[in-house]
């Protein structure tokens, strides 16, 4: 087992270099650079732009820039953001934490809701309950997150106009005057603000996830060994939860690797629409401005987490699926 883990870690090294180089190259292939925006400013001279370009190292060949960046990376330095004039990690970290306020609860909620819903749909296939859930799931899948967020904002405003009560905040993460609150009130305030974004993010995920769970469960339930288990006279509860469910969740365990980078990659456009100070708006700005090291640095963190996550899910697989052995 140890040998297997060591081997896997060795494999990760070329993957890491390949992936980072590709990311770096693709960002650089986009036309222009961080300073192109300045070029249309009538007050800035071309000499100034050329000087800044050389200060930022943007005038050097791409491979040189990559090697320099890699050198810093190996010293655990993700680089410097052009726009913020600060280390990338310092800029990214507080925003990742903000995103986690949405992402962590919604991930938990996803598993807590989607798995039972999927199992229910499989056990009561074509029942009224299954049809209602399927219908809702298709709606959930069809509505893009950002649009759902806009609908919620509209509804909140309409309720406010009619009753004068702000059921949930229209947008943002904290209320005006937040800094003066005591710590309990601060936590409650953030929670109050997080409700709608969490619901928005989770609904569409639940929709997709529960459909897959239902399909998996149906497939497993039609297997021979389930018939055998039932024939042995096992209780239905044991058949379903011990034999069927354990096998049905294997594909999800294999995908757990994706959850780790998912934790830092933010809640998506909901953050932009609802003015949640997460990582997505920051990253969009960086992409737009071609803030090279910000984008590259963020991709690198995601990449490392994805690699670690994949390793973890492979190890978890041996635990849920006795058929898998790495010896």
């Amino acid at each position, binding site marked *: 087992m140890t040998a297997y883990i060591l081997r896997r870690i060795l494999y990760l090294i070329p993957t890491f270099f390949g992936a980072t180089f590709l990311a770096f190259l693709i960002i650089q292939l986009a036309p222009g650079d961080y300073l192109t925006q300045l070029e249309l400013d*009538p007050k800035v001279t071309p000499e100034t732009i050329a000087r800044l370009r050389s200060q930022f190292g943007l005038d050097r060949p791409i491979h040189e820039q990559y090697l320099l960046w890699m050198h810093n990376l190996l010293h655990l330095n993700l680089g410097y953001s052009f726009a913020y004039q600060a280390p990338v990690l310092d800029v990214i970290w507080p925003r990742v934490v903000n995103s986690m306020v949405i992402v962590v609860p919604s991930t938990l909620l996803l598993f807590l809701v989607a798995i039972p819903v999927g199992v229910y749909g499989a056990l009561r296939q074509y029942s009224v309950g299954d049809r209602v859930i399927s219908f809702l799931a298709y709606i959930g899948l069809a509505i893009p997150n950002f649009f759902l967020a806009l609908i919620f904002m509209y509804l909140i405003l309409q309720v406010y106009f009619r009753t004068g009560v702000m059921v949930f905040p229209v947008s943002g993460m904290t209320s005006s005057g937040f800094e003066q609150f005591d710590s309990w009130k601060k936590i409650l305030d953030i929670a109050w603000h997080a409700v709608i974004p969490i619901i928005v993010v989770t609904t569409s995920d639940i929709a997709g996830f529960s459909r897959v769970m239902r399909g998996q469960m149906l497939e497993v339930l039609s297997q021979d060994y389930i018939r055998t288990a039932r024939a042995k006279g096992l209780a239905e509860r044991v058949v379903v939860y011990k034999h069927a469910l354990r096998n049905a969740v294997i594909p999800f365990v294999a995908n757990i690797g994706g959850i780790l980078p998912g934790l830092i990659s933010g809640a998506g456009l909901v953050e932009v629409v609802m003015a949640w100070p997460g990582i997505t708006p920051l990253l969009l700005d960086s992409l737009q401005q071609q803030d090279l090291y910000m984008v590259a640095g963020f991709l690198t963190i995601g990449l490392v987490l994805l690699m670690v996550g994949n390793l973890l899910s492979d190890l978890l697989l041996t635990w849920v699926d006795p058929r898998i052995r790495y010896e």
Partner: protein
Amino acid sequence: MRRALAALVGFIALAGVASAQPFVWPQKWTVAKPSEVKRGGTIREAVISDYRTFNPFITAEAGNVPSLLAGPIGLVRRDPTTGDWIPYMAESWSVSPNKLEITFKIRRGMKWSDGQPITADDWIMTWRIHTDKAVGSNSYDSFFIDGKPITLRKIDDYTIRFIYPKTDAEAFAVASFAPWPAHIFGPVYQREGAEGIKKMWTLNEKPENIVSGGPWLIESYRPGERLVLKRNPAFGEWNKDEAGNPLPYLDRREIRIVKDTNAQLAEFLAGNIDLMAPATVDHISQIRQAIQQGRLDATIKVNASPVASSQFMVFNWNKASDPFKQSLFRSDKFRRAMSHIVNRQAVIDIVYGGLGTPMYSSVYPVLTQWVNPKVPKYEYNLQQAAKLLAELGFTKKDRDGYLVDSKGRRLEFNLSTNAGNVQREQIAKLIVDEAKKVGVKVNFTAIDFNTLVGQLLSSGPDRPFDAIIIGLTGGGLDWPFGSNVVPCKGNLHMWNKSGQCLDPRETQLDALYSRGRTELDFKKRVEIGYRMQEIEAQLLPVIYIAGPNYHPAWNNRLGGEHPDAIISSIWGQRQLELTFIKK
């Protein structure tokens, strides 16, 4: 007697301290009388993009934190009612006979928020750091005229002299920069140089370490979310209203970062933010509706003024690889015909929902003092366009209905603008349609902004585009012509980047530009500006189209806005220092 004398001495000493002559904010800058004003409270604002740094020397974005903290501070400032420069942190100034030196007497008794006095050293240090190439300050270029440096000299603690390499219409604009505390930045600069400066006042700096001379201090900042500013009491000691009350009236400014304008609108409609400048017809009508239905107690000034920016179509004069197109684009007759096909009213109606202003010259329509009303306008007129094109030899049409010349060459060009700018894309489509009506084939493509800029600013005899729709901002009140735009060697001389003037009228404009920039008399400068607009109208280096208008809105819990006459895209809707919370 002795005691009386001591008291008298005490009184004189006290008077010495308090002799700081305050700057009195004129009543005419606000609609509110000092008697109706209330102190305290918080104004709530929203901005689209996040803040990047607290450091005044490396900040680059518009509306950055240092500029918020500094507010209007500078030796001089403008009076919004007249546009004139008036003394502010300076008590007075004198101009040398050769007009190359301006000596400012600095107001005494002003203090930084940490209690240190504000003196000439602060300006000297700020200027030094801004002009250090290694720092990379965005203000660097503003301290040079034609590449020659402007120098500052300290005469004594309260006297400072600006020495200009040539007479400069923008001399006071240069002197209006905000000073920063030399006692904070100086020691670091001496010890560690530019690198030390760059590391200072990042977003992670504790708010209490940020020293300001302006109206505001940082209370707190939550990344990507909210900046809270609080009143700087030291500013109130020398800034008073006409009743002698210290300014600003407000205790706090809460500025939320709301990237999505729909969310901004929702917050404004819900009464959660106080200021808004809606840019689209849809947003304007939602605000109006909410006000009319009594759901929102707010004011909106629709069409308060045009915005301070230009929008135009530029033809490329440098197409050595295609002599036919090159001679076409260099012909003023052709460009005049193209101006006649731009349906500016349709642009305003369709793109800006009727809330826009047509443009005919490089001077933004909002700069009313500068706009020459007598300049000929080549307005939408397809017959005139067809006539001009016929004079160029395009009389016949081919099978597809497009004009061709005697050699059978079709009148056709490519037009592009930056993808994602929906309004410019709509303008381009309108131009394509109108051009087709007179038989000109225009092929429109929207391309990536950076690619577009690369094409536009490329130089040499053969450049890779036909025509581009783009806009510029940043023209000043002192001299509204761009130093990079008008001179033939300018980097933004985007129609002709061969590096030399090709048309005698370009040479004329180039010369007039320099004359105006060095003319100190405002009236004479305006005359030069008028003359330049006349030549521009003949030459039509670019074809101006139309732009949106400025529509400020505010929640009625705020008082102290500008009188209607000075609400504009240049002066804004209010002085925040004179703004107060009514209820």
